[in-house]
């Protein structure tokens, strides 16, 4: 029988939530790495028992943990992330040049074909790759050395590379996103990169249509349509049907198009989910109502999903990596909040129930569908 394993990263540890395919009763394991910030955990699609986790702390810096038994036990692996060559500078908040400095790993993306290959998105923005299960890390410097690098600026949360999407149809193609530089794509396995921000319009930068400088919050792709991408930008929900070459807005009737998380239904590539957040200074849902919005038309036409979610006095946030879907039929949707709740829907968003209510602030949610 199928099982679901939900990997939850929080401000003070990691939790592993498991259930059978009914997704009604959950076992909660954790906190793992109690007291540490767990920005992201993700399992290998090749070997689901191989899980990578980013563990960090203001005191002790960055660690990478690896599990070979589905998160029951862990071992620390390599944590040395050294930029290639002389890192140079990017822009600081005040516009002055600021040297590139490693701060933390935001996102880990295991290879689709090899359990020992894994990518890391870091702050200050760069992408690293390990081909030995996380023991050693090498930068793919072509991204940071893209000519626009000196113009990149940190978003409010730091200059983080937070999204890595591997194209299942083309092993040479990778998409990434950086706050606040924008989205980039490589078609040669990471040697060279090009910004893919045409069509984005950001009024908070001097040139709203600039090639870089956009605060992209997250990107999602359905594996059956790797040329179609959905983006939650700082403001605006966007869509591209040509691998990011051009984007158009699909915010439609959303109550606000600010937000962080976005994801795609596992079996319906035109069904997408966002969690509208009131504004960039008010990081909570409009009107105190926690609503997931679903579009079954690939954007523009959205419906609120509210059953089982708090509809009054709710002022939590849902961060960019804190929403995920399972592959069961019907598709399960999961998201975590800064208030420590992890909500699940086993009917594609029609109804919701909390799996847990009182975790530390949730930073990331990933789901594994196990047979």
């Amino acid at each position: 029988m199928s099982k679901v394993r939900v990997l939850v990263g929080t401000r003070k540890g990691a939790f592993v939530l498991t259930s059978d395919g009914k997704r009604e009763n959950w076992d909660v394991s954790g906190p793992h790495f109690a007291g540490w910030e767990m920005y992201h955990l993700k399992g290998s699609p090749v070997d689901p028992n191989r899980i990578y986790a980013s563990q960090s702390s203001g005191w002790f810096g960055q660690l990478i943990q690896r599990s070979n038994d589905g998160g029951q036990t862990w071992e620390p692996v390599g944590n040395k992330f050294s930029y290639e060559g002389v890192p140079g500078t990017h822009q600081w908040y005040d516009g002055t040049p600021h040297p590139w400095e490693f701060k933390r790993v935001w996102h880990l993306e295991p290879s689709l074909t090899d359990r020992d290959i894994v990518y890391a998105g870091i702050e200050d923005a760069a992408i690293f790759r390990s081909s030995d299960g996380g023991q050693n890390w090498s930068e793919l410097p072509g991204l940071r050395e893209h000519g626009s690098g000196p113009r990149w600026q940190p978003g409010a949360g730091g200059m983080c590379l937070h999204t890595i999407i591997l194209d299942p149809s083309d092993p040479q193609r990778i998409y990434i996103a950086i706050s606040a530089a924008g989205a980039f794509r490589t078609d040669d396995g990471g040697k060279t990169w090009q910004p893919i921000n045409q069509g984005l319009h950001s009024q908070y930068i001097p040139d709203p249509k600039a090639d870089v400088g956009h605060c992209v919050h997250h990107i999602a792709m359905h594996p059956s349509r790797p040329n179609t991408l959905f983006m939650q930008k700082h403001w605006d929900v966007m869509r591209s049907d040509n691998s990011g070459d051009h984007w158009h807005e699909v915010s439609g009737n959303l109550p606000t198009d600010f937000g962080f998380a976005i994801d795609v239904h596992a079996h319906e590539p035109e069904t997408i989910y966002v969690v509208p957040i009131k504004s960039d200074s008010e990081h909570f849902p409009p009107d105190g109502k926690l609503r997931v919005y679903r579009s079954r038309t690939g954007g523009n036409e959205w419906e609120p999903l509210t059953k089982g979610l708090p509809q009054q006095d709710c002022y939590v946030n849902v961060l960019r990596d804190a929403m995920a879907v399972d592959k069961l039929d019907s598709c399960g949707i999961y998201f975590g909040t800064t208030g420590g709740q992890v909500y699940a829907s086993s009917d594609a968003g029609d109804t919701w129930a909390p799996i847990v209510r009182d975790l530390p602030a949730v930073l990331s949610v990933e789901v594994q569908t196990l047979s």
Partner: protein
Amino acid sequence: MSQQANRIRVELPAHLRTLAQVKGEVTLEVAAPVTLRSVLDALEACYPMLCGTIRDHDTLQRRAFLRFFACEEDLSHQSPDALLPEAVISAAEPLLIIGAIAGG
């Protein structure tokens, strides 16, 4: 002629004890001269999972929110090549690696 190794006592912060899977103090064999650098080199050699958690991988600078105390003195700002107090070298006192009180 090989230099005689000293047995040095080091007390780690709780989170690093968990990471290194040790309880209480650790004892290290450290060849003279016994300095912060040589003690940390020995510590990281015995417990490689601690690399990067106390000092930067590349610059070897102390991480900002950690402090080195011994004999009721703050040694954090002294040269990493300065000799540690005699009481540490003789193992009468431990070198304390402290997580600074910071944050909320």
